[in-house]
């Protein structure tokens, strides 16, 4: 699956639909579909809000399905930013009054993926994430 999106949150439903279509064709479990959707949304929404504020206009999403893994590739033309390293620290132990939501998305991503890598190349932020297929069962 390869989808070219405008870097704005209104594109999220179209992205979720495309992921769902692939999941149906490829017979993913509901849990795996949820996790792939979540990982993509958290990173895409960062681009569509923070990245957009810094000038991002386009986001490319590529999904590859193999027998034991799902690979997600994201590329955007926003300011150089590695969310895996630079997102705010998130502490899931903080009480309700001190709790911040910043960083929770990236914390979810880090927890759900097996492997994540970032590079900046040809003027684009490029993220590659690998999810284990068996976690969906």
């Amino acid at each position, binding site marked *: 699956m390869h989808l070219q999106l405008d870097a704005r*949150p209104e594109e999220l439903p179209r992205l979720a639909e495309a992921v769902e279509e692939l999941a149906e064709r490829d017979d993913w479990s509901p849990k795996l579909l*949820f996790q792939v959707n979540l990982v993509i949304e958290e990173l895409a929404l960062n681009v569509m*809000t923070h990245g957009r504020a810094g000038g991002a206009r386009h986001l490319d999403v590529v999904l590859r399905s193999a027998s034991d893994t799902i690979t997600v590739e994201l590329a955007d033309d926003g300011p150089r930013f590695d969310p895996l390293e630079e997102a705010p620290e998130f502490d899931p132990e903080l009480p309700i009054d001190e709790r911040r939501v910043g960083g*929770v*998305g990236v914390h*979810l991503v880090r927890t759900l993926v097996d492997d994540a890598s970032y590079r900046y190349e040809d003027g684009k932020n490029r993220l590659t994430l690998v999810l284990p297929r068996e976690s969906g069962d």
Partner: protein
Amino acid sequence: MNITEERQGDTLIVTAAGRVDGSNSQEFQQALEGVIGEADRAVVLQLKELSYISSSGLRVMLMVARMLQKRGTKFALCELTESIREVFEISGFDRIIPVHDSQSAAVAAVAAS
């Protein structure tokens, strides 16, 4: 995303169904704030029909939980699907908002406390 409400004794039960993501989380927040009255002393959010939530939805849950805490209103969630429960566990949100397996347990908990 769809919100419906019913009352059981003094407890307001709000059922959220569908998807809550970054494209509709503000709508979700307004809908919740719209159905929860200032006079409500106990609120249960029934999530058995919620199919998806991301950090945008968690942010709304946190805002609502804080608003209700300030008012002294009891608040609990119930019947999270397996995937949504996982999101709450990873984010630690299950430690700041009580989560129950059944609606009756959630209603009993907010009424008793």
